[in-house]
């Protein structure tokens, strides 16, 4: 063991706490220089070597505190228990959106708009399915926002606010889904941008979460304009509506699965003392 045994042990902990940072070697090198320099200064004013090391380490701060400071400065992604739960929720939400797209929605779009009245039971079922699927999606959103920087601030509140607005709209007026999915797309655009800014290493697939629903809405508008399928009693085209929802939901689900698998397989408990945030 070197003459800086306490510092060496500390640096091992610090490296583990900062393991996801792309420049971890530089950060540890900088910490090494700081701690050795500080120890030398403290020895020069009369402290013995062990005391000087202990004081230098105490002044530098616990590795968890330092890691959190880097996270808040946008320098590290922090896997948390919330992020792992969010991964599972994302996979559940993907199943929900696909279920709505493939099963419930096309059926309802056809039956409801081409029948004399909208069956209350079906409307209620659609609302419940929309609510539960969107709620699971918001769990992912929450996990992404925490993973981005460890805590809420600024755009994170805006993102979650838009997500909650989407939840309300997709519960109360599920059939008018474009009004609900647009704020949801903006919420995810903000969240993914935040995660990218913190060097969390998201891939292009995650941007599907932001672009999927705008693509679905655009397709719906185009098909509606072209008069796709039979016209319903209000002069609208339910199949155009269903096709737009189907495409949006499939793309969105692809993004959910991609990020869900990634978050689900992170190991938040690998360094609990250093990086656990919740």
């Amino acid at each position, binding site marked *: 063991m070197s003459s800086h045994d306490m510092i060496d042990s500390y640096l091992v902990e610090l490296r583990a706490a900062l393991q996801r940072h792309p420049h971890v070697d*530089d*950060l540890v*090198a*900088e*910490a*090494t*220089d*700081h701690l*050795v*320099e*500080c120890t030398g*200064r403290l020895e020069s004013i009369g402290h013995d070597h062990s005391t000087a090391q202990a004081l230098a380490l105490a*002044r*530098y*701060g*616990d590795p968890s*505190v*330092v890691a959190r*400071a*880097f996270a*808040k*400065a*946008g*320098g590290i992604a922090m896997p948390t228990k919330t992020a792992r739960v969010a991964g599972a929720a994302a996979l559940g939400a993907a199943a929900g959106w696909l279920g709505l797209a493939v099963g419930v929605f096309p059926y309802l779009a056809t039956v409801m708009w081409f029948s004399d009245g909208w069956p209350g039971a079906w409307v209620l079922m659609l609302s419940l399915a929309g609510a539960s699927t969107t709620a699971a999606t918001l769990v992912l959103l929450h996990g992404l926002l925490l993973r981005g920087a460890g805590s809420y601030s600024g755009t994170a509140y805006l993102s979650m606010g838009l997500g909650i607005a989407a939840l309300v709209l997709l519960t109360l007026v599920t059939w008018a889904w474009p009004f609900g999915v647009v704020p949801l797309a903006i919420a995810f655009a903000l969240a993914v941008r935040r995660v990218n800014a913190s060097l969390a290493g998201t891939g292009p697939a995650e941007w599907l979460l932001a672009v999927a629903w705008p693509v679905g809405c655009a397709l719906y508008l185009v098909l509606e304009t072209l008069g796709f399928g039979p016209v319903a009693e209000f002069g609208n085209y339910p199949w155009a509506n269903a096709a737009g929802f189907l495409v949006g939901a499939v793309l969105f689900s692809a993004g959910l699965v991609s990020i869900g698998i990634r978050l689900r397989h992170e190991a938040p408990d690998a360094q609990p003392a250093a990086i656990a945030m919740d």
Partner: protein
Amino acid sequence: MLVLAVLAECPRHGYGVIEQLRLRSGDAFDLPEGTVYPVLHRLERAGVLASDWSEHAGRRRRTYRLTESGRVALTEQRSAWESFSAAVGSVLQGVPCPRTT
């Protein structure tokens, strides 16, 4: 602003910056020293600081210096602080109440 001010005279490594902050403030800023590094890195990303690596006593050392935009930012922030500080000082100084009789 404080970090920029400490680097205004000459380039310093991280420990040097933190030591100057502590000395000049009379130990008023009692924060974990390791948390100053994210601030330095953020300021570098913002373009107000630049850094260089060198070897010192067998270990790697990163030295920070103020950029031109950092000097401009410091001048602006210092001016704003002096105006604010003067205004607060003026209010706190107080004046005698006028006689009402």
